[in-house]
């Protein structure tokens, strides 16, 4: 099994392996196999299109966690110039599971914050698999207040399985750290745009996700609990995660239908990691356009709209 491909992508992986083999043979062979290669390539494309046309919510959950998926720092380096990372919560520590700093998007100064996962084992551990501790949320809060003082719009990138469930995290007030961010972000006097780039895991995601505009990459997910967690509580079995993923409607498409997400940013065929430049270009377009619109709006009106947006969430009989 090719680990660069997910289980449901294995037919594509097999074709790609064949193409690779032919290429190697082609170097020292007279027969023209270029034709065969291009035939296989177009087949691979068709197959990918076919598979990606009807992905299940569970398959999308797996894509959202794909080990090759671009992470916050990848987007930061591709999208922005003059990025300067700013560390620490000024109280306890610097949490590498959240990164933040000032930067420019097409010359426009702004502040960016995002969850950060690690690529190799060592970095995964250092970044705690993108699961922040309270000091991570407090760093984010400190940076947001900095942005407010210097009138910098805030962009956040969401990509976490959730806030870290550990002893130290509880001792240092994980709940309070998240709650305070929700409260402060609801009235932060500067525009906020949040983008879910991978996993939007529960309160740990929302803690940097209260915003004026919420967008999601096409194959990102956002949910109140992980499909595994939901399955093990409600179905009493983590094996039911695919059912839980479907029931919770955690995909960008479904959440857009429900009016919880403002915009879906398209990903290239096969997902963001298959063509990072394309993904970045799409993201740049939507961020620039949204920033233009939000920065034009008088601040008081923006804040009133943000308040109404959150107060309006919920479906009930009355």
């Amino acid at each position, binding site marked *: 099994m090719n680990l660069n491909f997910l289980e449901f992508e294995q037919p594509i992986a097999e074709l790609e392996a064949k193409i690779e083999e032919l290429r190697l043979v082609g170097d020292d062979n007279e027969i023209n196999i270029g034709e065969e290669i291009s035939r296989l390539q177009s087949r691979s494309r068709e197959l990918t299109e076919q598979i990606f046309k009807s992905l299940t919510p569970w398959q999308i959950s797996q894509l959202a966690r794909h080990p090759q998926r671009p992470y916050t720092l990848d987007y930061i380096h591709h999208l922005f110039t003059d990025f300067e990372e700013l560390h620490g919560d000024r109280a306890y520590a610097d949490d590498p599971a959240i990164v933040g700093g000032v930067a420019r998007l097409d010359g426009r100064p702004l502040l960016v914050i995002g969850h950060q996962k690690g690529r190799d084992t060592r970095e995964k551990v250092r970044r705690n698999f993108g699961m922040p501790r309270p000091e991570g949320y407090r760093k984010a809060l400190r940076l947001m207040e900095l942005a407010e003082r210097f009138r910098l719009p805030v962009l956040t990138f969401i990509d976490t399985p959730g806030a870290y469930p550990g002893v130290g995290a509880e001792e240092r007030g994980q709940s309070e750290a998240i709650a305070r961010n929700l409260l402060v972000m609801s009235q932060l006097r500067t525009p906020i745009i949040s983008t879910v780039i991978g996993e939007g895991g529960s309160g740990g995601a929302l*803690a940097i996700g209260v915003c004026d505009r919420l967008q999601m990459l096409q194959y990102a997910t956002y949910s109140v609990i992980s499909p595994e967690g939901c399955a093990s509580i*409600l*179905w009493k079995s983590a094996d039911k995660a695919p059912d839980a993923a479907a029931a919770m409607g955690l995909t960008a498409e479904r959440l857009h239908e429900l009016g919880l997400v403002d915009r879906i940013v398209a990903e290239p065929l096969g997902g963001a990691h298959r063509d990072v430049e394309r993904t970045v270009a799409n993201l740049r377009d939507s961020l620039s356009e949204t920033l233009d619109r939000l920065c034009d709006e008088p601040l008081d009106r923006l804040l009133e709209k943000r308040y109404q947006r959150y107060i309006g969430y919920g*479906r009930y009989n009355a």
Partner: protein
Amino acid sequence: MNWFSKLLPSRIRTQGGDKKAVPEGLWEKCGSCGAVLYRADLERNQRVCPKCQFHMRIGARQRLDGFLDPDGREELGGEITPHDFLKFRDSQKYRDRLTQAQKKTDESDALIVMAGRVEGVPVVACAFEFAFMGGSMGSVVGERFVRAADHAATHGMPLICFSASGGARMQEALFSLMQMAKTSAAIARLRRKGIPFISVLTDPTMGGVSASLAMLGDLNIAEPGALIGFAGPRVIEQTVRETLPEGFQRSEFLLEHGAIDAIIDRRELRQRLASLLSILLHRRHHAPVAPSLESPA
């Protein structure tokens, strides 16, 4: 049936069965010290064990009933009721779970809001009903909380919330997550208006409720021994693969780590919160209307 009763002739056995005629639930065992308590005494003591001071869980309505002055109460937001808009179905339909919870508790959802007075001080008080789907927060809980905050803001009355909840209600998926932001935004507005919000954390206050409204009080007060935290102890144990220290995530642990202002015995809450509110509101001090029934050891 044990071996002894099997030996008895059936006629005598039937007579022995008469014991069942004693009304069920006249006695209740303390979950902490195991003392067998006369239920009427226990209720009179606000469900605090008179032997070991263990604070048993208490229903939302009973809680508000004991907390507010008897006169001039008005329930708010009762007309807001749940609706299974996602047609959520796990091993059971959400709709059926709602119906069961409603039958079991006689409440339409997990938060009850009342305007009233505490020792003469006008307040809006709300309480989570833990027996209703684990006190989980969905759209109705969020909306009722916001109505409570709005009422408090409009009338310049302080807001008090007794939380008891496992967290967000999974059956409402992302909508329930958004209730965290919704309730926090309402509290932010109260703060700007200078209206006090007192959060009383009771057993248990976990997950999305603790990571939003429950930790955002101007004062965070806990009852003794309440389990309070973000992640559940079992999840943490599975993550860190070690047994958790004694008293982990209990009120006393939170007090020690600086997360809450004070721990107050349930039987003193009414009087002490009234006094605290009078100070925050610059009201003249007045003596408690009725002395508490039993002071704790």
